[in-house]
């Protein structure tokens, strides 16, 4: 990679060992992926839950945190993805003291680096959405795909170490979705069905993700009949990123880089095309419901719920009582508003548990399953059903109202 004088100084250790490690790491990554140089970034977003970090990762962060203050601080605004617990509710999830201790150590280390502990995967709805053309280093697939596609910002998937490296150097290798030529559509999806429920948007995202298949594919959708709401496109993008490892999509006439399809897919371009209809979406949901007539737990999470979703849950549980655990996971920012507006109280009066600053699958899901006897899980998140099977759960994808019905019927799923 071509390095500026400043980057050479970072590499030589003139700004301390943290920045030196960071730029060496970035050069390794950039060389592998064909980056010619670096691009300055304005924000970083770090995924660093302790289930992923483990003891080794926390010790590694603590090593950076022990450096002198002037050598360890991040150089751009840097925020965090959800953590592995909500300390206020950990006992209700039967999380173990060692998990909480590891979380406390990770938080202390990240704070010592100057990281802002926002603990959210919906920063584009709650903290500060990036602008079109803004280069950022984001570290949650749902965040990246939303900000690339809906905001027109420019980021690759930046895992925790690389997002931290970007925070320490204020730059990232210029490859992938920082480049104009990578942002053009590589496949065309003709959608014959505009979803209504969030789980249907997620199912559509999952189907497109399966067709796309890998990180370097950029689907362009035609046929969506109305501009989706932020929560709808949030579920669509999160599932697309999860099933396909996809970081950018376009919807003709709706997303900013595809005001016309020609903008991202020149007329006559020869790319694979596919059709997806209502029957495909229904079949996808059905594939996760085979032979399950009841569930042990209902989870709304992945992504964290917006204020509007919190209001929807509160309205749906009004006057009812959950008879199995009903977990409603949101960001610390939304939680404050939900408390103030009485939404949290309405959900918890109905037997739900509102959790903040965590995400279900990032919170020792396997250990929670064993401690609580949870095996069968209902959710309206297609992303969660994709992930949670690996942790030993049998997930069912249903609408938010159907999930609430199941929670209030003792877990029984209406036929």
């Amino acid at each position, binding site marked *: 990679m071509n390095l500026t004088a400043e980057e050479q100084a970072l590499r030589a250790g003139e700004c301390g060992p943290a920045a030196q490690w960071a730029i060496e790491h970035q050069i390794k990554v950039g060389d592998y992926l064909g980056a010619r140089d670096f691009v300055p970034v304005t924000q970083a977003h770090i995924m660093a839950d302790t289930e992923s970090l483990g003891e080794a990762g926390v010790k590694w962060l603590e090593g950076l945190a022990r450096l002198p203050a002037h050598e360890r601080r991040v150089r751009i605004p840097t925020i965090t993805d959800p953590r592995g617990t909500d300390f206020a509710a950990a006992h209700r999830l039967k999380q173990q003291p060692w998990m909480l201790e590891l979380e406390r150590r990770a938080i202390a280390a990240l704070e010592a680096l100057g990281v802002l502990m926002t603990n959210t995967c919906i920063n584009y709805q709650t903290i500060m959405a990036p602008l079109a053309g803004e280069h950022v280093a984001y570290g949650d697939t749902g965040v990246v795909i939303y900000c690339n596609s809906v905001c027109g910002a420019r980021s690759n*998937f930046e*895992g925790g*170490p690389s997002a931290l490296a970007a925070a320490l150097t204020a730059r990232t290798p210029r490859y992938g979705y920082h480049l104009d030529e990578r942002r053009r559509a590589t496949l065309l999806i003709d959608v014959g069905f505009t979803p209504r429920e969030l789980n249907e948007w997620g199912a559509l995202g999952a189907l497109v993700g399966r067709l796309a298949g*890998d990180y370097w594919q950029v689907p362009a959708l035609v046929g969506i009949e109305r501009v989706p709401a932020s929560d709808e496109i949030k579920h669509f993008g999160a599932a697309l990123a999860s099933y396909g490892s996809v970081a950018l999509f376009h919807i003709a006439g709706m997303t900013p880089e595809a005001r016309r399809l020609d903008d991202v897919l020149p007329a006559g371009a020869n790319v694979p095309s596919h059709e997806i209809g209502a029957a495909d979406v229904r079949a996808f949901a059905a594939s996760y419901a085979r032979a399950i007539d009841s569930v042990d737990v209902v989870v709304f999470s992945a992504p964290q719920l917006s204020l509007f979703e919190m209001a929807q849950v509160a309205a749906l549980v009004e006057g009812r009582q959950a008879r199995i655990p009903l977990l409603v996971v949101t960001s610390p920012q939304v939680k404050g508003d939900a408390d103030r507006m009485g939404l949290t109280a309405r959900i918890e009066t109905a037997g739900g548990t509102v959790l903040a600053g965590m995400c279900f699958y990032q919170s020792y899901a396997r250990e929670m399953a064993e401690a609580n006897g949870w095996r069968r899980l209902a959710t309206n998140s297609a992303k969660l059903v994709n*992930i949670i099977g690996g*942790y030993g759960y049998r997930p069912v994808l249903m609408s938010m109202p159907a999930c609430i019905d199941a929670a209030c019927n003792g877990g029984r799923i209406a036929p």
Partner: protein
Amino acid sequence: MSGETFFAVAGMGAKVRGVALVAKDGFSARYDLDRVRGVFSRADHKLAGESYVGRVLVLDAAKGGVATAWMLHEMRARGVIPAALVLNAVNPIMVQGAALADFTMLSGFDLDITQAIANSVMVEVDPTASRPFIRVL
């Protein structure tokens, strides 16, 4: 077939040898693995139930989210880790995770590498060569 060599577009990490574990399926440490037991745990993964410890994984594409960037480092610290990862298509997360963990990885072939390498054969993976390669021993 013994001696067959397949060159990759890019490689990282040290030269290793091991028994290949091959499938036309994806890889994500979070989605697919029970990292405590060292087995593929995702029920619909083609390698479900198989141990990955010390094996050279030959798979199709990097999948899933960002967690693998930390998890390879964590797996290495406990010694419950594959010997190497060989993929048709990589994503940045695998590269970032391999860079942090000093893990051996190859990606990008001019054929489907999951069809070219037979399951359970002994292979050598050399990312340090001028043209990184995987060779059947």
